[in-house]
């Protein structure tokens, strides 16, 4: 299915075992009745929940440094709303990454959906139909990704990278390289910008999506299929799982969620241009990988991903309020990802 060159689970796998091993305090074959059994070491969850501690630390540091600007409820409301789009994209990305396939085309799919839905509305198409068509185009993109990966045996990394480029071309074609502005449907725009308890609606869509994915991945057999296919595809196949179908399905799900996210972004922006999608790619990937060191360490998981997103966003916001230049955003995100995954890998090696 996937070659060594692109096994998303590997990176997280390293990070993951690390922490599991730490928690269970395991040697290769402990003797029954060993002392450690009777006197378990206190567990503060410093590994699994390190993200939460760091998050708290960030809030305390910036809170005492900038009490007037940072510690205000509207600040937190802005952080929550701003990150909804990245978070939704990252949540959709968990599915293929858990199953051991990359979807590098998710951000391009998002951008394409923004272009499609905005253009359709501008042409006077019924908003409901426009939204359904845009989301449907996402499902179709996922279907093609799956076809290329499963049937044509192209590595998912390459297949979705190619698809990404094709979608960039398609988005350019739809928008004609211009910015198109949606003036047609006010209801549609309201759905992206109305605030509820001070937070814009996309945040609540994201929470709903997170709940659904959490239940599906953690409390139905689907999650087991995904993790089994991602953990050892050959063993999964010999345990009767239809790995090809799981892979295919995972790619359809991520593309559909990416398109849905694109529709919401279109409602939020009220306009479309051919380059809105790509900037979301790296933050979404970082969030999932950083998230895989958290909560359910070693696995791409919903809660960990959310912790990662908001941890990074809070840090960046604090730095901005403290007057840092705008490039700090990328710098902070990149450093945090590398350091977190490296720390987890180090714990793993010391085992």
């Amino acid at each position, binding site marked *: 299915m996937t070659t060594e060159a692109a096994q998303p689970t590997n990176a997280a796998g390293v990070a993951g075992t690390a922490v599991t091993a730490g928690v269970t305090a*395991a040697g290769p074959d402990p003797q029954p009745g060993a002392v450690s059994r009777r006197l378990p070491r206190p567990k503060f969850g410093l590994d699994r929940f390190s993200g939460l501690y760091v998050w708290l630390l960030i809030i305390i540091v910036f809170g005492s440094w900038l009490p007037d600007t940072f510690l205000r409820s509207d600040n937190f409301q802005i952080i929550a709303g701003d990150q909804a789009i990245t978070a939704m994209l990252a949540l959709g990305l968990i599915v293929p990454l858990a199953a051991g396939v990359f979807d590098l085309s998710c951000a391009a799919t998002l951008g394409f959906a923004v272009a499609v839905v905005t253009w359709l509305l501008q042409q006077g198409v019924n908003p409901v139909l426009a939204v359904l068509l845009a989301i449907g185009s996402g499902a179709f993109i996922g279907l093609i990704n799956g076809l290329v990966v499963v049937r044509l045996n192209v590595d998912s990394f390459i297949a979705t990278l190619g698809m990404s480029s094709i979608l960039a071309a398609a988005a350019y074609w739809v928008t004609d390289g211009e910015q198109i502005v949606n003036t047609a449907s006010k209801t549609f725009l309201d759905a992206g910008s109305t605030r509820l308890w001070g937070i814009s609606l996309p945040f609540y869509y994201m929470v709903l999506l997170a709940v659904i994915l959490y239940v599906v991945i953690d409390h139905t057999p689907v999650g087991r299929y995904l993790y089994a296919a991602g953990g050892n595809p050959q063993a999964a196949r010999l345990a009767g799982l239809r790995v090809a179908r799981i892979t295919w399905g995972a790619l359809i799900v991520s593309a559909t969620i990416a398109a849905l996210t694109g529709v919401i972004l279109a409602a939020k922006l009220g306009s479309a241009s051919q380059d809105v999608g790509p900037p979301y790619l790296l933050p979404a990937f970082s969030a999932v990988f950083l998230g895989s060191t958290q909560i359910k360490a070693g696995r791409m998981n919903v809660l960990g991903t959310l912790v990662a997103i908001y941890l990074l966003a809070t840090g960046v916001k604090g730095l901005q309020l403290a007057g840092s230049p705008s490039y700090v955003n990328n710098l902070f995100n990149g450093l945090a990802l590398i350091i977190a995954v490296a720390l987890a890998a180090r714990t793993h090696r010391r085992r």
Partner: protein
Amino acid sequence: MVATPVLRVRRLSKTFPGQRALVDVDIDVEPGEIRALVGQNGCGKSTLIKILAGFHEPDAGSEVMVADRPLSFGDPVSSDAAGLRFVHQDLGLVAALDTVDNLALGHGYETGRLGLIRWRQERAGARTAVRDLGYDFDISRPVGALAASERTAVAVARALSRHATPPRVLVLDEPTANLPAAEAQRLFALVRSVRDAGVAVIFVSHHLDEVFGLCDTVSVLRDGALVTTRPTAGLDEADLVELMIGRKLAQYDVPPADAAHQGEVALDVRTLETTALRGVDLTVHSGEVVGIAGLTGSGREELALALFGGCARGGVVAVAGTTVPQLRPDLAMRYGMGLVPAERHANAAFLEADLQENVVVASPTAFSRRGVLRRGSERSDVARWLDRLNVAPADTERAMSTLSGGNQQKVVLARWLRREPRVLVLDEPTQGVDIGAKAEIHALVDRAAADGAAVVVVSTDHDELARLCGRVLVLAGGRVVDELHRADLHADRITAAAVGHTLRSAS
């Protein structure tokens, strides 16, 4: 015994968090000696070897001398420089590369003035190295395409090849785990020639006949401590087993595998063909245990996978009268087949996942209600199975990777026994499993058959086939060449049949 030891291990201890893996182990090995190192899984053998190889650092106070010079710990390069050489169980070869390149992984390439590889010299060197070990195969083929014993030879050649220092101690970690008996004999000849060259050999094996057949002395480890070191002469297998497990091995009942107990036909196979199999017919009744023997290349390796749909096949496979299409393990499973595949790590284990997920992966919906898992009842069911199979530790939340090989294998068995399969196919079910767990796995197979499963056991361990099966089919050249029944089911007889037919068809 006046020679000075080339390897001198003193007070070697290693503590992992919560567990002492080695406790004050003293071992001396002399040049020109073949020393067996035995003990159950988890006794500390692998830890000892990993310390020698420089992968683990021992506790303070431990001391290892190689040729009277202290070994500095935790550094594979200084272990190598001291003359300690290793052939690990998985051999550590790159299957896609040929012998020349694999040898170069050990010592680097011979380069000319411009930094270009001197291919002609490299090839000549590889050919000599292989020939010195008594082998003659095409060194330009990818090692993945070589026979198992030839691959082992490549790994040994690499371990012995020119380094900065000559090899002093060669450690072979279960080198025969994947070798059929005849090929193992070639390896033993090789090991003896290495010994005769004055190298000390440490030979780790679960096969006690190899310990007696090959080794001069044996060191027994149990629970991290050295039990004894003795000459193999004067010991017998029962003594050695007792030393390893610290008690007499309980004798399990021999299975009631006679024809009277057989039920209806559970597995019916007609003209099974794969790249290696050339038309195999096989009928197995409920309650029957049928063994499959054969040398490497006989088609034995592919049979189990082909039955289950893990590789492409021709012919007809029917479970309880229903034909199963090829390449559909999911359907094979639905119709009542189960497969415990060979090479656990590649084919069966989800090492990062916990035991619960490893067990339920083959029946993920058994405990779900309206699509939602009921983890509690699932967990208690899995715990019951771990308990029944005597998995240690029986902790559903523990990661699979932290268990010993034997316990991992029992977890995989639990996965299938829990489904109560009509047909249970076992491929090398006790590969890399210690002697106690092996007896337990055998007892579980007996019980599954007694409960009405039709069992197919594919194995290179002919004692195992003799122990388990009511009938053994011997494969050679992709066909069934012999069928042995209860009355003449002895390991020697099976081996003779497998080897005999190979010789006959070759001539």
